[in-house]
């Protein structure tokens, strides 16, 4: 209780609230620009969070994530183009609603669904995390190694594209994490004469390179369509009517939010999967499934409550085990490491004020999102008028200075370029990025736990005789089997499609 009050004191001050508000506003802006992703937005806020204390830094990134998840619905509804990939299913009914003359209603329902989804996922986060973290306190190096193995294998098999490519991405990520000083013996590895590499690659330029720089290059190659938004269209809708709309679909709201939370907890499966999955399930449960796709409010409710509720879900494994649920939480994990905080089961015990602070900030971010998006919608629509060739140079410079600012050295800008190239190559070659970044972040922990386990007992069968470790290894194998199955099924479907053509 004392920690909770302390967290309230830490969060409820003008500075932190302003930071959260800025984060939410930036998130909505980034989310509403097609071609820019939430991960890119969070990567760009990393350098700013670096100079803040951990609570404020995480609050800033939390704001961007919550704002970005709901910002995607603006263009999804008004243009039929999702502002972010996690608003894909929002277009299915949001856009037809706008075409039917219900622009204000579509946006209001989407916004309030996002709000309810975020709040519900926050409640699950608060209830689940302490329980899981306490359970994980008994974990030894065997269980920790098995847990991380499961995290990486699940993220590789659940990510889009082929399983082999997912695994390659994860293993390359681990390979890059090996650069620097060996965690147990202090021997330098793969430094190739660069003293700057003795501490390994810094997370910040790596994350900005992989997520922001590579995305900018993709935008340069294929710019998003110039938008012709009708900013004069009526985008306002009474709050009471919106609440009534949601109340008549309360089961859908709760079901979709819970789907979002569950999907968020799974490694790799973030807002984009939650968005599509809950839409599909809402359609199956609907009494009038044929109206989906023609402007049914339940389609927007399902899609928007799920993509926002996946945020809280993704935080559960990150705070309880130190394993991120998606790319954005992977970056937040990296940010905590930059601040010298080791995420994992002990985080709840060692930094309770920080953890409770994260819990509280998700709720406040949701409230800010509701207020900012309600009142600023016309301004956010205008931002889409700015051509990308004006935005790209500014963002590219932010990438450069953000990377430089970590250690005040130009070497980190070279690291940015290297990982920007790697990220761009991976994007172009359909290698998923989340396993790569998870590999880089978890690599040192995987190695440390494996070697500690072997040092204590060189018998490898211990991994299978300890129940939790054995279950996690079996789960890792099962997730790989699922990956192989879905790959085979996918290629068979593709062949059938080709033959039919």
């Amino acid at each position: 209780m004392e920690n909770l009050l302390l967290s309230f004191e830490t969060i409820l001050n003008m500075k932190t609230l302003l930071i959260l508000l800025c984060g939410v506003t930036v998130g909505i802006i980034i989310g509403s620009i097609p071609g820019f992703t939430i991960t890119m937005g969070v990567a760009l806020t990393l350098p700013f969070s670096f100079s803040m204390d951990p609570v404020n830094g995480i609050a800033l990134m939390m704001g961007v994530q919550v704002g970005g998840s709901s910002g995607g619905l603006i263009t999804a509804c008004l243009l039929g183009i999702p502002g972010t990939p996690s608003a894909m299913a929002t277009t299915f009914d949001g856009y037809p609603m706008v075409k039917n003359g219900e622009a204000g209603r579509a946006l209001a329902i989407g916004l309030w669904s996002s709000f309810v989804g975020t709040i519900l996922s926050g409640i699950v986060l608060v209830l689940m995390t302490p329980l899981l973290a306490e359970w994980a306190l008994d974990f030894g190096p065997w269980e920790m190694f098995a847990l991380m193995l499961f995290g990486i294998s699940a993220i590789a098999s659940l990510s889009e594209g082929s399983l082999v490519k997912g695994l390659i991405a994860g293993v390359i990520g681990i390979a890059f994490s090996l650069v620097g000083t060996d965690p147990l013996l202090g021997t330098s590895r793969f430094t190739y004469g660069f003293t700057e590499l003795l501490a390994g690659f810094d997370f910040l330029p790596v994350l900005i390179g992989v997520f922001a720089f590579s995305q900018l290059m993709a935008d340069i190659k294929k710019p998003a369509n110039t938008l012709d938004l009708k900013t004069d269209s009526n985008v306002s809708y009474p709050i009471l009517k919106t609440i009534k709309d949601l109340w008549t679909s309360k089961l859908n709201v709760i079901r979709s939010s819970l789907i979002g939370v569950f999907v968020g907890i799974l490694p790799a499966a973030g807002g984009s999967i939650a968005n599509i999955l809950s839409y599909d399930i809402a359609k199956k449960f609907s009494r009038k499934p044929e109206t989906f796709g023609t402007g049914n409010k339940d389609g927007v409710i399902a899609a928007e409550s799920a993509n926002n509720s996946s945020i809280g879900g993704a935080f559960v494994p990150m705070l309880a085990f130190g394993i991120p649920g998606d790319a954005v939480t992977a970056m937040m994990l990296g940010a905590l490491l930059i601040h010298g905080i080791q995420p994992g089961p002990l985080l709840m015990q060692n930094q309770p004020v920080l953890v409770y602070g994260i819990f509280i900030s998700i709720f406040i971010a949701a409230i800010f999102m509701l207020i900012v998006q309600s009142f600023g919608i016309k301004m956010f629509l205008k931002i889409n008028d700015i051509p990308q060739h004006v935005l790209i140079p500014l963002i590219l410079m932010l990438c450069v200075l953000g990377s430089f600012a970590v250690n005040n050295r130009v070497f980190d800008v070279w690291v940015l370029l290297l990982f920007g190239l790697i990220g761009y190559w991976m994007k172009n070659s359909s290698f998923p990025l989340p396993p790569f970044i998870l590999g880089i972040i978890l690599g040192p922990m995987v190695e440390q736990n494996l070697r500690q386990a072997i040092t204590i007992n060189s018998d490898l069968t211990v991994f299978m005789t300890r129940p939790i470790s054995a279950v996690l290894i079996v789960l890792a194998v099962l997730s790989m089997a699922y990956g192989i199955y879905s790959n085979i099924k996918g290629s068979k479907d593709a062949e059938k499609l080709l033959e039919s053509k």
Partner: protein
Amino acid sequence: MREARKDLVNSLIIVAFCGIAYSGILEIPVRGAAKTEADFFPKIIVGLLFVLAIFLLVKSIYGMIKQEKRDNKKERVDWQRLFKENSKVIYTFAIFSVYIFLLQGIGYFISSVIFLFALYLILMPGKKRYITGIIGSVLITVLLFVVFRYGLSVYLPEGKWL
């Protein structure tokens, strides 16, 4: 480039990466002081990556053979078209590399203005790009200098004059 051919090139890149990493493993000093040495985990990871790369290589060759059988002709890579499609990205990477060199040598101000101006020329169509380029590059350089220097207390690289 079709997916299978792309994967063939990718798998070869990864095999080459494994080769470089293996040469790095050979340089790790082994002290014989612990059950697991510093080269223990890198060997596992590079070995695993090599196996996965070979798997991708075999898969891509199989895919290419299947593709050729289906289309009944050999696929040719149109390098000119490929370069044209990616030209903006290639130029951006190139000027960015030059920018980092300049950043070290002549400092933040002049190098950033030159880089941003060049970037505007690449990205913007039409004659207006020269004026927009000059105004935009100076504006962004000054704005970010103020934010980072006075807002975040970051000392940006200084050159001889600025």
